[in-house]
């Protein structure tokens, strides 16, 4: 949807989880990560897959940022920007919820 409003921002202390009926799954045949959702499966790009693999319903967004900043030896503000933007977008697309 091109005319969708910008997603509302997500705070770092938010705990996000998958909405029921939505999950990350490894597609063995095509060797890629996919987001399974009602009546559609879409490919999770590598960044989305890294983030979503850390979504467990207990970890706050800040912890996800910390883990990825360490894993990729990248400045935390850069990772934080990407993670918050991705999570807001996935929440708007009804994949994740607070």
């Amino acid at each position, binding site marked *: 949807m091109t005319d969708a*409003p910008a997603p509302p921002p997500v705070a770092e202390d938010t705990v996000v989880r998958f909405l*029921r*009926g939505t999950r990350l799954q490894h597609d063995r*045949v095509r060797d890629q990560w996919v987001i399974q959702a*009602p009546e559609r499966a879409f490919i999770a790009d590598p960044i989305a897959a890294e983030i979503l693999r850390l979504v467990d319903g207990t970890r706050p967004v800040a912890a996800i940022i910390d883990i990825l900043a360490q894993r990729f030896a990248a400045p935390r503000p850069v990772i934080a920007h990407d993670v918050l933007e991705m999570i807001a977008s996935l929440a*708007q697309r*009804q994949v994740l919820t607070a």
Partner: protein
Amino acid sequence: MTHIPVPPPMSLLAELTHRCPLQCPYCSNPLALDGREHELTTDDWLRVLEQAAELGVLQVHFSGGEPMARRDLPDLVRRAAALGLYTNLITSGVLLTEATLAQLAEAGLDHVQLSFQDVDTAPAETMGGMPGAQEKKLAAARLIVAEGMPLTTNFVIHRGNVGRIGRMLDLAVSLGARRAEIAHTQYYGWGLVNRAALMPSRAQLEEATRAVEDARTRLAGTLAIDYVTPDYYADQPKPCMGGWGRRFVNISPTGHVLPCHAAETIKSVPIPDIRTDSLAAIWADAPLFRLFRGTDWMPEPCRGCDLREQDWGGCRCQALALLGDAAATDPVCTRSPDHARISRILADLPETPPPLVYRRYGNAPG
């Protein structure tokens, strides 16, 4: 013989049965409905699910007819879920009870798409041909949402209900649906038989589109809306099934394996059968799947068209139904030499709709 490997399908539409308590005149099922005695067995379907997962299918849509008319549905859902397939139930809801829903949820069902014929009871039940259906559907929606299962409500649009789209979407929200489909009738099978009774006018279509756009703004963040238009009013054809034999595979109640649910109308090649061949072999090699896969089959103007890998030449079954040639450019396309056929059909729509031909065994014309 060398083969370019064929990418596997993403989705399986499992049409478990043609039996259904409703009789909607826009049904996408073929005119020749399969009887119960010819349906695949539970073991056949369990084998299909295993083959589908192995081939690379990600989502299975259990449909019909009314798939809940099959008592083995929970067993099929359980096997599909165990195989990692995303399980979707496409149902009228009239057979759904707290007990049957609990069984399906326990088996691992991921999502339900529930059909409504209308927002108001009287026209809904006139269309569905089943008194009492609307209350059963509303009750089904409430049970699904109470269970926590994600719900998509589906409304099929025609000239009789096109003015009520805004209220249909309000109903979807009030029931707690996350998604709604506003799907104009597609003119195949029973829908084609009833075209003159169902096709909206261009003004009605424009009003419908405005109602959907308004609701998308009004309900942003609450309800996602899928909108399917009637392609007769389009300038370009739809990319039917995302291209022939590219993403979808359909299996009929008797085990026919099809690139789309209308493909049994194509008689020039044998219809592949899951009882005698594997899904992988059929997908890769069956003449029916190879017939219109890719772009090599295309006539002009498709062959030289920049859009050939966007719309894949449109719909083969529509070309067959309207022109008698499944290999012709979809006449919906303004570049088709036969596009005037579509304009004439629209110009000749009657002021007063003819009586509906209800979808039931033995009721097909001809």
